[in-house]
């Protein structure tokens, strides 16, 4: 006996939406069960994780701040994933973008450099991330090296580069030997969107990226090129789309957006370089991209949902003494449920007895 998946030909949009809702409910039920086994009240946990952050204006701002880098990175990753290319190293591209952008902030620190510093920093962030993303793309197109491995390994290289810089040459001499850079000048700081608010302009960049991507993927030949490369690579070659150029382009785009996320986070949220500038946004963004089904609007929503679990997780740690690991477990459970729901909508599961081989 074995399970057989037969494709459904009549999966409707309504079914897909319903399946997503079912996936969320299932994920909450599983998480509730885990919390119950851990001896806490699932109802209280739901209150802390979901209801409280959504009813508090401060927490909603915090939600957007957390969602911003994930949305930016995940939007970039959606270009790669659509073309069936696996950039797992967005975390590294994020870090290098932040490092290169911050270099200018530190260079101009204490000088009267004008308004150009911030745009130049953002540009450097994009360029840094894009170039770093092009390394695995180049290795793949030139030597056939698996991009999953190289992009992932380059994450650790990037993190160690950052670590070296903030502990060594870029350390704040007046920082009591703490491994961190000086605090950026106002000219090198990404301002909040609203006076005295927490949400910085990175959120605006994320929304722009979502809108532009929606047009690119839906209306342009480049968008079709990615879809065709992902769905039928031979047909893509037949259409005259060079796979080498596609690979380079999507890695540059996703790297660039990750770099922009990195420098925005440092210049808008943290205000200085320190050994850790990300709680794993680059990796969580992979989850976000798939939760959003590689659809730009979907990714925007997914980034807010995942940000909610981050914030809820922090309060749950304080209020319910639930470990932060539970948050990551929940993110995983949620992704599994969504992917499973997707599979169940696209395929019918049949139990067959062997022997009747057709």
């Amino acid at each position, binding site marked *: 006996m074995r399970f057989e998946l037969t494709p459904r*030909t009549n999966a409707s949009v309504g079914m897909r939406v319903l399946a997503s809702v079912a996936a969320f409910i299932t994920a909450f039920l599983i998480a509730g069960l885990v919390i119950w086994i851990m001896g806490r009240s699932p109802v209280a946990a739901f209150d802390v994780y979901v209801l409280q952050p959504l009813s508090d204006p401060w927490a909603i701002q915090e939600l957007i701040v957390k969602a911003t880098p994930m949305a930016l990175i995940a939007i970039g990753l959606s270009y790669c994933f659509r073309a069936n290319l696996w950039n797992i190293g967005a975390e590294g591209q994020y870090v290098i973008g932040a490092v290169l952008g911050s270099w200018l902030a530190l260079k101009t620190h204490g000088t009267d450099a004008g308004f150009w510093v911030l745009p130049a920093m953002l540009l450097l962030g994009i360029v840094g991330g894009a170039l770093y993303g092009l390394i695995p793309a180049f290795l793949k197109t030139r030597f056939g090296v698996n991009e999953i491995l190289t992009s992932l390994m380059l994450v650790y290289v990037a993190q160690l580069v950052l670590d070296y810089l903030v502990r060594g040459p870029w350390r704040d001499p007046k920082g009591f030997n703490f491994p961190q850079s000086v605090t950026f000048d106002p000219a090198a700081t990404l301002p909040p969107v609203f006076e005295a608010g927490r949400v910085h302009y990175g959120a605006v960049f994320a929304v722009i990226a979502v809108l532009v991507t929606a047009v690119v993927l839906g*209306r*342009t*030949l*480049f*968008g*079709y090129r990615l*879809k*065709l490369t992902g*769905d*039928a690579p*031979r*047909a893509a*070659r*037949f*259409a*005259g789309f*060079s796979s080498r150029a596609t690979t380079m382009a999507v890695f540059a785009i996703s790297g660039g957006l990750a770099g922009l996320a990195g420098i925005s986070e440092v210049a808008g949220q943290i205000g200085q370089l320190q050994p850790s500038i990300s709680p794993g946004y680059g990796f969580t963004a992979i989850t976000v991209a798939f939760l959003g089904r590689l659809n730009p609007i979907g990714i925007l929503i997914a980034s807010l949902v995942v940000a909610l679990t981050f914030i809820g997780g922090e309060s749950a740690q304080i209020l319910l003494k639930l470990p932060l690991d539970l948050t990551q477990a929940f993110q995983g459970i949620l992704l599994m449920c969504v992917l499973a729901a997707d599979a169940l909508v696209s395929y019918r599961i049949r139990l067959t007895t*062997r*022997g009747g*081989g*057709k």
Partner: protein
Amino acid sequence: MKADVPPSGPPLVELKEISKRYGDLLANDGIDLSIEPGEIHALLGENGAGKSTLVKILYGVIEPSAGEIRWQGRPVAIGSPVEARTLGIGMVFQHFSLFDELTVAENIAVALSGEWSLATVRGKLGEISRTYGLALDADRAVWTLSAGERQRIEIVRCLLQKPRLLILDEPTSVLTPQEAEHLFLTLDRLSAEGCSILYISHKLEEVRRLCRRATILRAGRVVATIDPRASSAREIAALMVGNEVGEIRADAPHHPQGEMLKISQLSMPPAGLHGQALTGINLVARAGEVVGIAGIAGNGQTELFAALSGERLAERPDAVVIAGKPAGTLGIDARRRLSAAFVPEERLGHAAAPTHRLSENTLISHAATEVSRTGFILANAAKRLARTIIQSFDVRTPEGDPQARKLSGGNLQKFVIGREIIRKPRLLVVDQPTWGVDAGAARLIRQALVDLARDGSAVVVVSQDLDELFEVADRMAVIHQGTMSPLKPIGEWTKEAVGLEMLGVAQAQGGAHAV
């Protein structure tokens, strides 16, 4: 033309009235075949004759629609390859199933699903290697081995299970002549020990070297069982491709004008392990004519198509000249802008993306010329174009703009050919235009190709279907092992002559055709 075989007990295996139906297609039609113990029996036939289907039935991969299999005189049902192996049937497939990263011994042990330890396998491997002259280093990783050595692994894997019948599917297609000779010696020894061998091939020399009996299939039926050494190459070729002369169309008044395609001294290395190199190919297709290229699959047609379409580039620009412009080093889009169009053999995945709608699929070959502007898709233009193709070429669709995979083979083929013809290309290259297509669609497609040529375009048709070529082509050449025969008017070809060229025996026997 039955060869006499001395009756000595029941045959090892006997197939009686085996039929296999796929929808409207009878892949096997009442096939009888018997193999004696220790016999090397050849199964001959063109591609699509039903050889693979028959062998898969015997190996338990597919179930026959009707008929009986007798093993040593006893009726058996072979439900799966595992059951086939239990009976004592081993098979070496044309395409290897090996793990590149594992060693020889590991690959063998994996296939034996834990019956033996790695050490036992290594011991047995040494034993078999010595007995049959199948030199193999147990600890080499497969990716370091040549095609011949890889095939040895597959053979050893079968031999370890002490088969009574060994099936080999086109075993020499990936071998050098020396490796092939080595294989023949092994097969002779196996046969002498009483193991029967079913040898599938379309290479006459090999069959004559190895076999005393050959069963010839054509269009799913057994046309003859012969002694290949007692029959001439001519006779065998005629049996394989059919004796009856096709309806050669009365020489239509065709006035070919300029050269739309000129291939000169085109050579190209093979694409991958199972590829075929092209050597010094010359061909000219003029406006107003259909040029047919015959040949058995795997003789370089795929490589030739890729070289013409620009999916693989030639070394010299003038190796491929399209409409007077050297195009050998131009990509497929640039060649389309020279008003060339292409239809590859594979409908799903190459000509069309299965999960994309037909309107999106128009983009694949029209993006370079229409339906997009400054990088944006003109979705409405694409939809209109798809609709026009659907109407002009009688494409039956389940809905207005369906996904390509929802169309039947014939309808999708009408769509992808229509998609190119509708551009009124000055050169159209089609690989296997009616492969696996129902008769109605095939007629429509052939008519469309002839009409395009009569309207002043050059059409190159690569096909394994000789009847088709005799029907549509004005001139024809035969491709065999990457070389092209002279291009001659269709009236000067007989099916027999084409058959000999397809088997590569024409040159060997000289122009006299005396056998």
